[in-house]
């Protein structure tokens, strides 16, 4: 208890997060993605071993936007290898079409990383300042407000109004820290999922706290958009907070946040995706299911959860735990899942490609399968699939449901857990 009290004191009278976190990180002279920094100046071809490229085309063949977009990773690698001047690459506007799903790297027979080369080209464009306005807005917002959505930092925690979700500012103490993420915090559709998750965690008696308004964007998309420096700044801000709190577990709403914490932060934060926590809580019988949810659902594997982090079973286990739910599988599921095109900064990029989007293809397939709902576990997937459902005119045929919302339906029949009793 003594320790709890001391920590509580520490967390009262908070200074503005940017100052606090940045000063601390600067004092410790700690930089992130140091590896990238060290090898600056080394040609792309050398840095990414492009001499090993077979030009087989598996990266392009597997690229989720390959059928629609002029983006051709194979050709980019080839040009990076044979051209002395990088200018020809910097001219390539289609690098913005990359969803950073990493399928190309997964497919490459030589273990090369076309996705990283694309990111480097984006970085070159960023360093020249030649970027789409929408990306510029997102990046500048992330620097200024700590989120890419152009929303005030002071409103970050507004999604939880009246829910009694604890924050460290209030001095709450918990071993588990919920890293909420920008999109769940600000996007109205994703807020519903965040509120559902809050409801489940509380109903399951899972002690947790959040960083409230102090949380900053994890930087995942900023890094993938090629803005390394911004990623470092954001990572430092979060890192400083995480070091201070030293939670036992960090759980994230978004697989993108989880992936950033796990693979981009240095040292890594062993974050869990909420589906992993829900699977465990379900397995331990701690989720008080009270209602049948008679839905036939298909699970859409988010790339950053599945392909990139190998989390395939837990979301399915959490779905299976909901009474009444029948889970069926897409043909293209798990490591063969179809990217929704929401990653790699594509939330802020239209893309050059024409024709049907993957998300549309996905919802059509789901409708053909005769499922009632597509369940996913990523805010970007949730938004792209929701959009696609409307575009495809399937609003009446199909629901897009976040995993947390599905589980919450089994616990409480209100679609939005705003009815949660507020803590005094």
């Amino acid at each position, binding site marked *: 208890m003594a320790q709890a009290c001391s920590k509580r004191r520490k967390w009262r009278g908070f200074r503005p997060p940017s100052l606090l976190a940045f000063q601390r990180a600067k004092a410790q002279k700690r930089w992130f993605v140091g590896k990238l920094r060290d090898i600056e100046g080394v040609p792309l071809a050398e840095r990414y071993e492009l001499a090993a490229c077979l030009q087989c085309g598996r990266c392009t063949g597997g690229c989720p936007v390959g059928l629609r977009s002029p983006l051709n990773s194979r050709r980019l690698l080839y040009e990076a290898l044979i051209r002395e001047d990088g200018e020809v690459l910097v001219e390539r506007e289609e690098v913005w079409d990359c969803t950073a799903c990493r399928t190309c790297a997964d497919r490459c027979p030589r273990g090369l990383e076309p996705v990283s080369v694309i990111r480097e080209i984006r970085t070159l464009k960023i360093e020249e300042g030649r970027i789409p*306005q929408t990306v510029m*807005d997102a990046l500048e917002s992330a620097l200024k407000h700590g989120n890419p959505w*152009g929303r005030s930092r002071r409103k970050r925690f507004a999604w939880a109004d009246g829910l009694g979700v604890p924050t460290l500012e209030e001095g709450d103490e918990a071993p588990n820290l919920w890293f909420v993420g920008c999109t769940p915090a600000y996007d*109205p559709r994703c807020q519903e999922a965040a509120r559902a998750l809050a409801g489940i965690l509380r109903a399951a008696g899972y002690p947790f706290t959040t960083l409230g308004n102090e949380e900053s964007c994890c930087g995942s998309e900023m890094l993938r958009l090629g803005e390394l420096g911004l990623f470092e700044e954001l990572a430092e801000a979060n890192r400083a907070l995480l070091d201070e709190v030293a939670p036992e577990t960090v759980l994230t709403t978004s697989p993108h946040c989880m992936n950033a914490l796990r693979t981009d932060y240095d040292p890594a934060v062993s974050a869990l995706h909420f589906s992993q926590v829900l699977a465990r809580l379900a397995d331990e019988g701690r989720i008080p299911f009270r209602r049948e949810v008679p839905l036939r659902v298909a699970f859409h594997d988010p790339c950053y959860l599945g392909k990139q982090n190998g989390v395939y079973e837990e979301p399915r286990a959490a779905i299976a735990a909901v009474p009444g739910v029948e889970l069926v599988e897409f043909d293209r599921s798990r490591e063969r899942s179809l990217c929704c095109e929401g990653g790699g900064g594509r939330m*802020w990029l*239209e893309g050059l490609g024409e024709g049907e989007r993957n998300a549309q293809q996905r919802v059509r397939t789901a409708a053909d399968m005769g499922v009632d709902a597509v369940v996913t576990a990523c805010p970007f997937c949730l938004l792209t699939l929701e959009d696609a459902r*409307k575009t495809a005119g399937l609003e009446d045929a199909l629901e897009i449901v976040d995993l947390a919302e599905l589980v919450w339906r089994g616990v409480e029949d209100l679609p939005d857990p705003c009815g949660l009793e507020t803590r005094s």
Partner: protein
Amino acid sequence: MSVWVIAEHRNGELREVTGELVAVARALGAGPVTAVVLGGPGETEAPAAGLPAGIDRVVRVEHESLAGFNGVAVAAALERVAARERPAVVLGAHSAAGMDWASALAAGLGAPVATDVLSLHRDDGGFLAVRTVYAGKLQARVRLAQAPTVVVTLRPGATEAAAGSAEVPAETEAAEVPAEVGRRFVEWIQEAAGEVDITQADVLVSVGRGIGDPEDLDVARDLAEALGATLSCSRPVVDLGWLPKERQVGISGKTVKPKVYIALGISGAFQHVTAMKDAGLILAVNKDPKAPIFRVSHYGIVGDLFKVVPELTKAVREAKG
């Protein structure tokens, strides 16, 4: 003590805002009102003839370098005349012209200056200007130091213009302007006419920077289509190249007076609001409840326009059957 009103004219025509300046000058009660009309040779006669009632004296200043209401020359000419005549107040418009000459005049005179003023008051302490800051989110009261002359520019549209005709014979003042002021007027250019004329539309659906993405224009387009309305926008959307300038509602764009004006994601900067505030019915959607647009709207909706507008489109379609 006297009050000078700088008559603004362009291309041979007196601009409406001059009437507003005269009204303020009169109301100020700080002495007789002098209208000063500056321009190149032959450029001042027509504007001087159109001056509104309430003017006690008209002074015309003509000079080569004043051609095209050249701001550098205007400031230089006024500085010399004002230094001699010491008017208590030089009133101009916070217009493209006023923004060009007024502060330079003040600098030349070493005079206090307040720009973009909504209302000007005189009390024992001298002059007090009320103006807005932070894009209209707050209002500031600014005290002008006691000085022989103060320079003030008024926000166009903030006051009711004086009407009538001056019917005062104009004096001609010699312009003590250097022949070469370093700036030369070349020509007036008018924006080429576009495909649409938003000033003729009965219903306008107007978008602002609150849309984050050019693709999101479709949300507004859908609503416009459902309503049979025309799509217009605020300045930032044009700056970003997302819609052509002919669609811009604002001081530098078009002034509109439709029956219904629906503002989506428009914060309500004055340069926009001035150009649409007389619409018959104004409905605004904005996520910021403090957005100034709500102060000129008849109805407001606080919310995410991507959630609200598609619903609205749907409801409109249903209503139309």
